[in-house]
């Protein structure tokens, strides 16, 4: 496993219980700058909960998450400030239906006082140009296809210049013919050096784009390795079983 840069996210003994249900049962790992980590596992394994804990959309029951050295599970920490640097892309896109495509992208930087209106508009158009959707800037999200929505959702996060991007099954709600356009944008991001954590069922993406693959089952990391080793020589019996079903 190649360590590419500084530790960006450090997860120590992360636990999350919903009542008696132990969804995360002590997860520890580090995400380094420039890494593209894919997280795979059967449904209900806790992989989405793990990802959503990284920006505290889920409040951990126990353990610590250090983002750029700061323990963001500390209630005294201003989580909103840290979330600005942690982009997130959802399975259901979650674009704002009452705002145009451009307004969706401009909303956060303007509201948070990071950019003036003009600057945000310029930046938004630049990002839309990059994903080939500039002509959709003034339409509402309902007018877009699933793939287009997800690409807009990605650049909505990008305008904040995040240090890391979290993807929660970004292609699972898409029609098959639209999966490619989203994955290729993600691949482009990865190549540009963006640090990414991706929960996905796209094994090809995991194998070809990621620098490390994590297998989570029953709330624990069962195996993590470079994609080559991970897919060619899986050791954990659960992982072998899982791979035999999905490949």
């Amino acid at each position, binding site marked *: 496993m190649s360590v590419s840069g500084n530790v960006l996210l450090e997860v120590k003994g992360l636990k999350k219980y919903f009542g008696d249900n132990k969804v995360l049962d002590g997860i520890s790992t580090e995400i380094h700058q420039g890494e593209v980590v894919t997280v795979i596992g059967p449904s209900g394994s806790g992989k989405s909960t793990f990802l959503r804990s990284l920006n505290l*959309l889920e409040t951990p029951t126990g353990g610590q998450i250090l983002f750029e050295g700061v323990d963001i599970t500390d209630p005294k920490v201003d989580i909103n400030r840290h*979330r600005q640097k942690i982009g997130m892309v*959802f399975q259901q896109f*979650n674009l*704002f239906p009452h705002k145009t495509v451009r307004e969706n992208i401009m909303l*956060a930087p303007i509201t948070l006082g990071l950019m003036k209106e003009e600057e945000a508009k310029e930046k938004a158009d630049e990002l839309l140009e990059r994903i080939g959707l500039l002509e959709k800037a003034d339409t509402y999200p309902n007018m877009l296809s699933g793939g287009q929505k997800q690409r807009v959702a990605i650049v909505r996060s990008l305008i904040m210049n995040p240090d890391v991007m979290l993807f929660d099954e970004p292609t699972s709600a898409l029609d098959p013919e639209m999966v490619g356009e989203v994955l290729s944008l993600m691949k482009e991001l990865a190549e540009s050096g963006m640090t990414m954590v991706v929960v996905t069922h796209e094994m090809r993406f995991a194998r070809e784009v990621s620098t490390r693959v994590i297998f989570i089952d029953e709330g624990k990391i069962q195996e993590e390795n470079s994609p080559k080793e991970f897919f060619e020589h899986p050791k954990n019996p659960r992982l072998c079983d899982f791979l035999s079903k999905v490949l």
Partner: protein
Amino acid sequence: MGFIESFKEGFYSNFIAGDMYKWLLDGLKTTLILTVLALIIGLIIGFLVAIIRSSHDKTGKLRIPNVLCVVYLTVIRGTPTMIQLLIMNFVVFAAVNLNRILVGALAFGINSGAYVAEIVRSGIMAVDAGQTEAGRSLGLNASQTMRLIVIPQAFKNVLPALVNEFITLLKETSIIGYIGMQDLTKGAMMIQSRTFNAFWPLIAAALMYLVLVMLLTFCMNKLEKRLRTNER
């Protein structure tokens, strides 16, 4: 006397003679001012209560304000509007010489707020949780997310129900006569007591309410259509 003549005679003696139509028009003005003031008060209270209640439902915070809101809703929805109006006038503001229209607006506004609150709360709860998550994940705080993302969508969802509440409010103000205000209803009753004719003034008042409500419904439909085409 033929039908046409008796019609003319009735109209003349009930409205034109002694300029009695002015009682209806002045009453109408009072009814409108009262309704608009009460609506504004009701909307402010309603949105506040709805935000407190739904924030509590979602996050478990704001426990004490939530309890106060529940008490308010229970009391207001559990007692007749008329009693609330009488208490406001003869108990709360008994010793204060406050403009009656303000007393009425407060009573009706506080009453309407309870219904608006439950309407808006249902609208807030109906906005997908993913919308809040998207806002928060971009670094917006809870109130920015509520104000810029959740409320605009909730408002659109509940607009028809809110107009319905507005219509109810307009009609409910007809009991303001009990604290001595001369609204549209009271104006009609004054004509009736002068001419001993119930038909003309009461039918005229009813028609005026009806036209107002139809006008509101019409505007509402227009507005709703525009909001929808905005998104599709």
